[in-house]
């Protein structure tokens, strides 16, 4: 075997792996070291769990961290669940043939290239107390003043954040499901129908198992993204509680370099949580798919 045959694959993989190893793994590793108190630039070379202890237990940070964790988990689970359900429903809606289907499918996908920063601003324009919906309500006499409109953005339950994620992710997951549905055709369903399956049975036992892998892989991406997203909660969130990413970035940008360690520790905690939740989710979903 010649040199080229032996080393062909490693050489082809090298450029991509260099990016992954130096930038991605290198960044994560160095970040973990910083979170463990290792900052040679300011003369700290001892490893300790002090930053993690501070975040989790200290009076100064504990409530910021735990309330933030709760909010982050709530927002990302709610957004993922709602996006997945609505994506499935809307994909089924667009799957049937009807006049104007091409136009409807095109408009459905129109927000895919819209960045999350813009999505958050759009939700602000729509749902703020003097936003378009509030104004529409005022026109038909439901609200007299902006303050009559419920606080749906910059609220402490993260409703604005969830709305903006759902708006962005429904077409995203929907397009994945739609691609699967389109490739299936109607053969399976016709077969099930001829065997006497009713509408619900055809959905539950024919369509759902077939679209499930696509639906799950799409919602994994949504979950991981919403958990680590910064722009949307930064624009649509409140001062307390803040999501973990927003707190991490604030600490990291703090003029006091010691807070940087805490900021780094929070972002490492976010990565660990996302990693294990995604693993668990994949394990669970694989079991569910196999059972079906």
């Amino acid at each position, binding site marked *: 075997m010649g040199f080229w045959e032996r080393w062909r694959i490693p050489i082809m993989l090298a450029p991509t792996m260099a*990016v992954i190893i130096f930038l991605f793994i290198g960044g994560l590793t160095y970040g973990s070291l910083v979170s463990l108190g290792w900052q040679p630039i300011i003369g700290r070379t001892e490893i300790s769990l002090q930053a993690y202890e501070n975040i989790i237990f200290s009076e100064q940070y504990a409530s910021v961290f735990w309330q933030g964790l709760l909010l982050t988990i709530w927002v990302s689970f709610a957004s993922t669940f709602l996006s997945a359900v609505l994506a499935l429903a809307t994909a089924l809606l667009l799957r049937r043939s009807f006049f104007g289907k091409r136009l409807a499918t095109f408009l459905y996908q129109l927000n895919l290239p819209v960045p999350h920063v813009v999505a958050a601003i*759009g939700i602000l324009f729509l749902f703020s107390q003097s936003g378009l919906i509030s104004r529409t309500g005022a026109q038909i006499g439901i609200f007299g003043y902006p303050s009559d409109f419920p606080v749906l953005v910059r609220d402490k339950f993260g409703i604005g954040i969830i709305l903006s994620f759902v708006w962005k992710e429904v077409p995203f997951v929907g397009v994945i499901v739609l691609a699967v549905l389109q490739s299936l055709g109607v053969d399976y369903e016709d077969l099930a129908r001829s065997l006497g399956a009713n509408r619900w049975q055809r959905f539950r036992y024919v369509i759902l198992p077939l679209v499930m892998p696509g639906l799950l892989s799409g919602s994994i991406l949504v979950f991981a993204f919403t958990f680590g997203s910064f722009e949307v909660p930064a624009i649509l969130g409140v001062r307390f509680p803040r999501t973990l990413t927003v707190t991490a970035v604030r600490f990291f940008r703090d003029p006091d370099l010691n807070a940087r360690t805490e900021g780094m520790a929070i972002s490492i905690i976010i990565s660990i949580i996302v990693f294990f939740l995604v693993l668990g989710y994949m394990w669970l979903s694989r079991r569910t798919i196999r059972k079906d």
Partner: protein
Amino acid sequence: MAPVSSRPTARKRLARVLHYCAVVLLIFLLLTPLIAFFFNAFSFRWFYPQLFPKEISLRAWESIVAANSKVPEALLSSTILAVGVTFSSVIIGLPAARALGLYSFRGKRVIEFLIISPTIVPGIAVAMGLNINFIRWGLSGNMLGVGLVHLVPVMPYVVLTLSGVFANYNPEYEQQARSLGAGVLATFWHVTLPAIFPGIVVASLFAYLISWSQYILTFLIGAGQVITMPVLLFSTASGSNNALTAAMSLVFVAPSILILILTARYLSGKSSAIGGFGQL
């Protein structure tokens, strides 16, 4: 069964009407946030109960093209970054995609897992870790450093898209071209490239979109020196000038929507690639 389908019953007609209503409602809900940008961008002194702005104004647009506007510069930075990231990511990812698409080898699954892992781990941990070293290496606060960090979220989608194309690619055509006397470059240009071109279009689309929309990585590595459109928009959105924020948002999303429309025919049904949209 036949008579049922030839003459729609009242129930079927009702079902069709309801289906139409649902589709119209869905599209309406998806478009209203976008419509809100147009309302805001052309409004001036748009007082509360008014649904439509009484005074239509181009003030926001004038300040975008004004001499002291930061928008043209931000558009330029964003464009240079996105184009640079797109080109380099495709060149870096192409050989790896070929290796993953065409060959099976030991450790392939580990390599695949490593390459897609940036789609799951949030970017802020990576960017914060790189931040300190980038300052030391002179990569903080300039386009080169920001472009390098953009490669992290971009590479998985470029490699994933292109390896999908290579999985359905027959390398024997290359051998035939070579045996007929074509050089390595000529073979790539006339045989390989045309065959994988649709994949390159889709990969470039995602590389461009992900880089163009990136806020937090640019913010953390750019250190206030690299002002791209999302960075400028974010700081404008923190102020109270809704008209300017809206107009700027429209300028920011217009190229992305245009590029999507132009490349839509290459995109149909490629569910593995569509994942890239989740990163914007």
